[in-house]
């Protein structure tokens, strides 16, 4: 390639059109920013939003456990052995999952260049088991943690 190609020289004289004021203003406004205070508050708000259900669920679970233990103690004192046996093999009758917390742990970029935010989420599995049709209900609450990818739109 010649260093003095007249076509290249002529092309070099062309200057791309300047950004018009409206576009310049628009792009200026699109300046990347760190996570704003509002976004941080949103995370805090979300945690608080889930904190209340978590506390309520834990309270219900504790009270249920307390009552069942109390009931079991009563049964041990006077109930028939058959009832005790059936209570030892409870069957799940209801189950509900509650999202307790969601915490961002990082961002990955997939091979297709799509970024994903990895979220560490914690679930409260709230299960009701009952021994027989008329047996006492037992409520259990266990936690489960997952890391899930969430597609991230970049703007």
């Amino acid at each position, binding site marked *: *390639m010649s260093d003095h*190609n*007249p*076509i*290249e*020289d*002529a*092309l*070099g*004289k*062309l*200057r*791309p*059109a*300047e*950004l018009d004021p409206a*576009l*310049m203003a*628009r*792009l*200026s406004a*699109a*300046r*990347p*920013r*760190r*996570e704003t205070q509002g976004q941080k508050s949103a995370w805090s708000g979300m945690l608080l939003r889930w904190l209340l259900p978590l506390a309520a669920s834990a309270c219900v679970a504790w009270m249920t456990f307390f009552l069942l233990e109390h009931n079991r103690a009563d049964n041990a004192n006077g109930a028939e052995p058959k009832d005790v046996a059936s209570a030892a093999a409870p069957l799940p009758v209801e189950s509900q999952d509650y999202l307790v917390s969601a915490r961002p742990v990082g961002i990955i*970029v997939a091979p297709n*260049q799509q970024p994903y935010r990895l979220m560490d989420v914690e679930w409260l599995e709230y299960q009701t088991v009952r021994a027989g049709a008329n047996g006492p209900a037992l409520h259990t609450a266990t936690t489960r943690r997952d890391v899930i990818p969430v597609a991230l739109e*970049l*703007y």
Partner: protein
Amino acid sequence: MHNEPSSDEWRAWLRRSGPRFLLYARQQTRTRSDAEDVLQDALVESWKRSGGMPADALVFSTIRRRAIDLARSNDRRHVREEEAGAPDTEWFSPDVEERETQHLLEEAVKSLQPIYREVVTLKVWGDLTFQEIAEATGVPLNTAASRYRYALDGLRDALKGVVL
């Protein structure tokens, strides 16, 4: 986390490199509004991905990918705007002294096949090396270089008789 550019830094970068990026975006999209959308998305994404001021090659490749994504997802809007006859403004700043020659040259550039015009744009106004052009466009280095030569030949033929 990315480094947040200051307002002055961001605007200076836009003034310095924005015209080159916009030129490429307009060649990669069908309408001016699409080009501006793609440009904005690509600038922000490139800055975030590089954690600071991005290399030009990254911005060009991001513009290219965003334009392809837009073309795939937004055909209906393109058709509507094209039917409305959205005007296409000049790609280059007018030069009062050489206006006629520049107009002919601009028309010659616009008449190039997109694959050749893209390489010329990235080489001449994007200041990319052939290696960077190859990476940005996903073609082998030799292909990028030969496309550039073909493009210059095409422009030379189109401008035969014009004093440059």
